């Protein structure tokens, strides 16, 4: 994103299904608990990617990667992980 302030021409017309609206409104600081992935335990099954309600987990070479700019700390990934590789840690 450029440093220029976005105008009405730049922003998406709807809250729904658009990446830009969230990109413009980083929501990661809403979090109380942060999911932390233990890459040694992670078996890269993709369960957390599927379950994440915000769609912000991707599967990297080492294991699940979480976009902390947008993760709201709901804990669904940690709950669903079959090998308990994700731990919810209280934000400082």
């Amino acid at each position: 994103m450029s440093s220029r302030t976005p105008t009405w021409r730049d922003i998406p017309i709807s809250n729904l299904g658009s990446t830009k609206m969230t990109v413009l409104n980083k929501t990661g600081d809403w979090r109380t608990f942060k999911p932390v992935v233990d890459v040694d335990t992670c078996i890269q099954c993709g369960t957390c990617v599927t379950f994440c309600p915000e769609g912000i987990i991707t599967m990297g070479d080492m294991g699940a990667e979480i976009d902390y700019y947008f993760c709201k700390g709901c804990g669904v990934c940690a709950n669903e992980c079959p090998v308990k590789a994700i731990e919810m840690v209280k934000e400082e």
Partner: protein
Amino acid sequence: MPSQSNRDGKRGIIGGNNMSKRMLLDGNHAAAWSARLAKAQVIPIYPITPQTECCTQLSEFVEHGEMPWASYVTPESEHAVMGIACGASAGGARVFTSSAAQGVVFMEENIWIAAGNRLPIVMCIVNRAIANPGSLRPDCNDSLLQRDAGWIQLYCEDAQDALDTGIQMFKICEDERVYLPGIFAFEGYVVGHCAIPVELPDPEEVDDFLPPYKHKFISLDPELRKYTTTTTPRRGEFGTERVYQMQVAMENAKKVIKEVNEDYAKRFGRKYGNGLIEKYRCEDADALLITMGSITGTARKIVDDLREEGEPIGLVKLRSFRPFPTEDLREAVKGVKAVGFVDRNRSPGSSGGGIGRIETANALYSLTEKPLLLGFFVGLVGRDVMPGDVRFIAEKVLKAAETGKAEKDTYWVQLKGEEI
């Protein structure tokens, strides 16, 4: 109303398949046919008088397999109806629904969500007076209540108008310059239950006119892996900009409605003025009536009568209420001495008159040479509007045009116990 689907399961309709045909339809059934011809895919709907026949006709279409592409959903309330409509539209389906009076009021919250999220849902409102004082019979406050929500609003005069406007509405709303939901409205009973011969266009030609719905900016398709959120921007960072985008879309809609009206006329041979307004015998008129919906038909007759008597009066049918055709009205009143707005709606304590008069006054205010503007309340809470009432209105406007002076800003036509 003859059923389109015979009880023995045969669904033969006059003229056979893939042909345009003529049927005896009332407004409700015409609206249902417009949804069928437009291939609406999700129909969340809740019955309410006087819209129930639209609901039951669509139910019959789906049940008899005549709309195999459609999902007919029966939620627990109108509020849920509009919620489901929003979800289905966001998910990529063409959505049709319909309601009236208390049902529309109950939907209110989600009506604003639909517009703000730019979901091109099409809703047919069969006008009925909101309680209280309520009635099963029509006035137009239920649809006019949505004036600030960001929905396009077109008003229909008869069942044929309802069918054509219903089909056109999908095309207008789904245009990427617009992407707003749309209401097409007509008065219950007077249009809703009054059957006239209606020309139904050939389904294949409608398909050609109206390609399948695909929103350019919204997708909840999980394959696309987009972030989805319904969160309101915090501190309203982009709220003003989003509202301005809707204003731009409304301005675009004026152009789109005209284009669609032209295109439709070329394909199907029926045209509604320029799409936004329809002028009738306005040449050299000193006095002008402005009407919405079914009163237009009565007013045409009265204008014919008065023209025969040599009176310089014309008629403008306001087809589009949102976007409000400001420029076209300014053009239409050039050289006119007095304008009368026939309002079948209420707004107690308003700046003067009904909602139509308020909007018209605003549209004409900046003109240096403007006509006198008279407002007429008529047909409130479902009272019948008779030719005599419209003639009374027309004569008042003619008198104002002649004398250059309006006795009153607002007339309560039909009011018992008041000398007018």
